[in-house]
Every structure is written in C-alpha cells, then in structure tokens.
C-alpha cells in the first residue's frame, strides 16, 4: 500500500524542511523524501550562511525582507536550536571606482524597495570593521543583514518537523511524478510509491529531472561552488562580508571560525558534473582573496574545504509557484545560490500556498511559466 499524506515534499533541504515544518504547524500531514541518506545534504549543508537583503535582485527583496522581519529574529527560540543568527550588518567592499559604481547601483535599487542600504567611505568601513585592509576605498552598508548557521538551521527545521509528525524518508530517489485524472497524485521512488493530493518539488537542480515526468521544465544550470572554514578565532567581527565583484564572501561564525566562499571563475566549464569534489585551485584562490581584504587572517588555518551544487536559474531568481496545468503540484527551485537566507520565508509562503491560503508576500515574480526568449 502506498504511503499517503496531505502533502509530499521532494527534497529535505532548508526549503523542504521549513515548508514541512510550517505545514505541520497548520495540521497538515507531510512526507518528505530525499535521495540522499542524510537530511539536507545539498546546498543547505554547503553554503556560506548569508542572511542578507543587500545585493539581491529586487524581485526577491520583499520575500527576503519579510523573512528578516518576521522569521529570523526568533528562529532559534522557535526551533529550540541555536541557528546562530547574527544581525550585525553587511559590508560589500570595493577597492576601485568601478567597484563603487556597482555598489552604488545596487544600493539605489535596494533603497527603492525600502531597504536601508547606504554607501560608506573606506574609513567608515574600517570603523565598522577595523580589520579591513587599506585597499578598501568604500563599501555599501546594510545594517539589518546578517548570517546564520545553515547546518543547524536546516536540521533545526527537520528536528521540529519530525517532532510534529512529519515523516522523513531518506535514501528515496524519486524517479517520476504521476498524475491521476488530471491532477498530481503519485510520487514514484526506486523503492515504493507515495500518494498525496499535493506535491512540492524542492530538489535543487534535480527538480528538473523530476518535473520532466509531468512535462514541466525550469531553465537552470548546475554550478559547483566551494567554501572553506578556518580554525576558531577569538571574536573579531561579526558583519557579513561581500565584495562588489563577488570574488569572495564570508563571516565569522558565533563559534569563532570564519566561513568563506568564492568562485574561481572556472565553475561553468567544469569537466566533471557528476562529482562534487573540490577543485585543485579554488581554496588557494579564496585564501588569497581573503588576505587582500583581511591581512590579519594570514596565519589563520583552514581546517576544511567543501563544495556544493547550486541550481542557477536562467534569470537569477527562483521559481516559487503552483502549476495550474498540473493541479496540486508546487515548485520551489532555482534559488541560484541564495536560497539559504531566504529559506525560512520561502518555506513559510510555500506552506501558505499549499494550505490554499493567500501568501504573505506576493509571489507573482516567481511564476514557473515566466521564461521567454529574447524577443
């Protein structure tokens, strides 16, 4: 007999776990499936932990601002898990006039959406973060940005969803979705069949293969991004950091270690799209990038590096959408590497969508059928 629930969620990342949690709170029965043996083993376990609004596409901003205003503040208490959320602001650093032009443009866009982002001088930036090198000539500053621990956040949602009765099946690789009398009905895995009136596909890039079985495609590509972590250091600064050209980003965690990420520029031409092994070049590159901004960290040791796939949507923002052509199916993918900070809010509104309530934030910019050719 098929295992049944009100909603089946495919993917146990932060999106899947948060949605499951908020749905369970509404009294819905939920089954979460993941192809991996470990919960949240995709991007949710591998990202840099940014919880930021600045630098985001303006289509994403309202949802992100909603999350920061209503969800992140009390998330540790709500989940009974320290998600290590720190709202100490975000500095996006610039070293050249060109950098400053990019930053000013981003700041202007953000202000237009009602976000407090200002431009600060190099000296002002060093007042906020005294460890910055003299090479920094200016920065954008968003005081309401921050960071959190993606591992405990995802697993905190999982823990609480499970406590509320959500059933998690790991090691369950979904092979197909099946409709019944015009509506979504079955989720077929390698081992068994699950049944529900509603299905949420939140499986990162793998969503594409799953959605294919019901004739839907989301145009996205798969990129491997790399991250590293240092040994613990005494508290130094807690701002989230980024750069105008996105050559690296990172922060010091509550634990004391620094988490840094960055892209070498070679990601898109990777030979091996099957393995998630780190590359030979990126960790060295990230280290050099950090030292140029923070010479004080030169002798700090890297203890671990890792890599994770992002599902990069062709237009840079995710799909958060129901699908009238397949009633009961909801899609959440294409988060493009910024799915963690927005994760709680996305889970919150997806739960509303699945519960047939009006989402707290307008989701029309995230329709699954928005993609068009150039003209």
């Amino acid at each position: 007999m098929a295992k049944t629930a009100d909603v089946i969620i495919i993917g146990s990342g932060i999106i899947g776990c948060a949605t499951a949690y908020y749905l369970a709170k509404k009294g819905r029965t939920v089954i979460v499936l993941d192809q991996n043996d470990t919960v949240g083993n995709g991007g949710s376990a591998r990202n840099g932990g940014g919880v930021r609004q600045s630098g985001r596409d303006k289509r994403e901003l309202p949802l992100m601002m909603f999350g920061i205003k209503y969800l992140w503040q009390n998330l540790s208490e709500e989940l009974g898990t320290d998600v290590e959320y720190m709202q100490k602001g975000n500095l996006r650093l610039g070293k050249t006039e060109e950098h400053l032009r990019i930053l000013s443009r981003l700041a202007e866009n953000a202000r237009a959406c009602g976000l407090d982002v200002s431009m600060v001088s190099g000296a002002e930036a060093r007042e906020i973060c005294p460890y910055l090198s003299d090479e920094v000539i200016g920065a954008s500053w968003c005081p309401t940005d921050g960071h959190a621990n993606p591992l405990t956040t995802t697993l905190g949602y999982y823990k609480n969803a499970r406590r509320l009765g959500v059933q998690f099946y790991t090691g369950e690789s979904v092979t197909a979705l099946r409709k019944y009398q015009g509506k979504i009905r079955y989720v077929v895995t390698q081992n068994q069949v699950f049944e529900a009136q509603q299905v949420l596909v939140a499986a990162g890039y793998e969503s594409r293969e799953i959605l294919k079985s019901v004739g839907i495609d989301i145009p996205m590509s798969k990129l491997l991004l790399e991250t590293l972590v240092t040994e613990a250091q005494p508290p130094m600064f807690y701002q989230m950091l980024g750069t105008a050209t996105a050559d690296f980003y990172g922060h010091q965690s509550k634990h004391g270690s620094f988490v840094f990420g960055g892209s070498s520029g070679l990601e898109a031409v990777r030979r091996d799209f099957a393995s998630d092994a780190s590359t030979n070049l990126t960790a060295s590159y990230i280290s050099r990038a950090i030292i140029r901004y923070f010479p004080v960290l030169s002798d700090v040791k890297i203890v671990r590096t890792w890599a994770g796939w992002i599902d990069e949507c062709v237009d840079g923002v995710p799909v958060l959408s129901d699908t009238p052509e397949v009633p009961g199916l909801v899609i959440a993918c294409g988060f493009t590497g910024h799915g963690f900070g927005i994760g709680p809010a996305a889970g919150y509104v997806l739960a509303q969508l699945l519960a047939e309530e009006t989402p707290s934030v307008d989701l029309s910019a995230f329709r699954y059928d928005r993609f068009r050719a150039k003209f």
Partner: protein
Amino acid sequence: MKEHENLRVKPIQWHSEPDDDLIICRCEEITKGEIRKAVCDGMVTIKEIRRYLRTGMGLCQGQTCGKLVKGIVAKELGVKPDDLEPATGRAPVRPVEMQVLGKESEE
C-alpha cells in the same frame, strides 16, 4: 539504509546516563550526552551529527573522536557501527595557514 528510515519516523525516548558529561570530541568539546540527545532529535547519520553538533569538525577533523562518536550513535540507534557511513574526507587533510594555501607553486 532501512534502519534509518524507520528511526527517522520512530522517535527514540531520551533518558540520561551517568557518563553523559564525558567529553567525546575534544576539539569542539562535545559530550556524550549531547551526541545521544542529537540522536533522539533525529540525527541518525554521522553527517547529521557532525553538522548539528560540530563533532569532528575541529582542528583534528575527527581523527581522535570519529570512532567514538560512531560507537555512541550506533549504540543509540541499535545498529552496528560499520553500518554507519563515515564522515567524508575533505582537503586539507592537515590544517594549512591561509597565506600558505594562497601561495601556489608548480616547482
């Protein structure tokens, strides 16, 4: 891993044990009780335990506590330690200073 499926669905009741305050992961100062509690909270793979608690994520990267943690988790779950997938090996195998890692040569 069938056991894990069932264990994720079937909660384990927490009970304290006299040596719960024993430190198991020395680098991150994680106790046996914290590990046992994490299993009760649903962390049933070594990766989940590491990510939830930070065991084996410190300077020695689990060289010392890896087997100890595995033993505790396996006992709590009622499975054999060998049935638990080990933590993933990641570079650098030994900690490296950023300025060294940043200085590459091919000679």
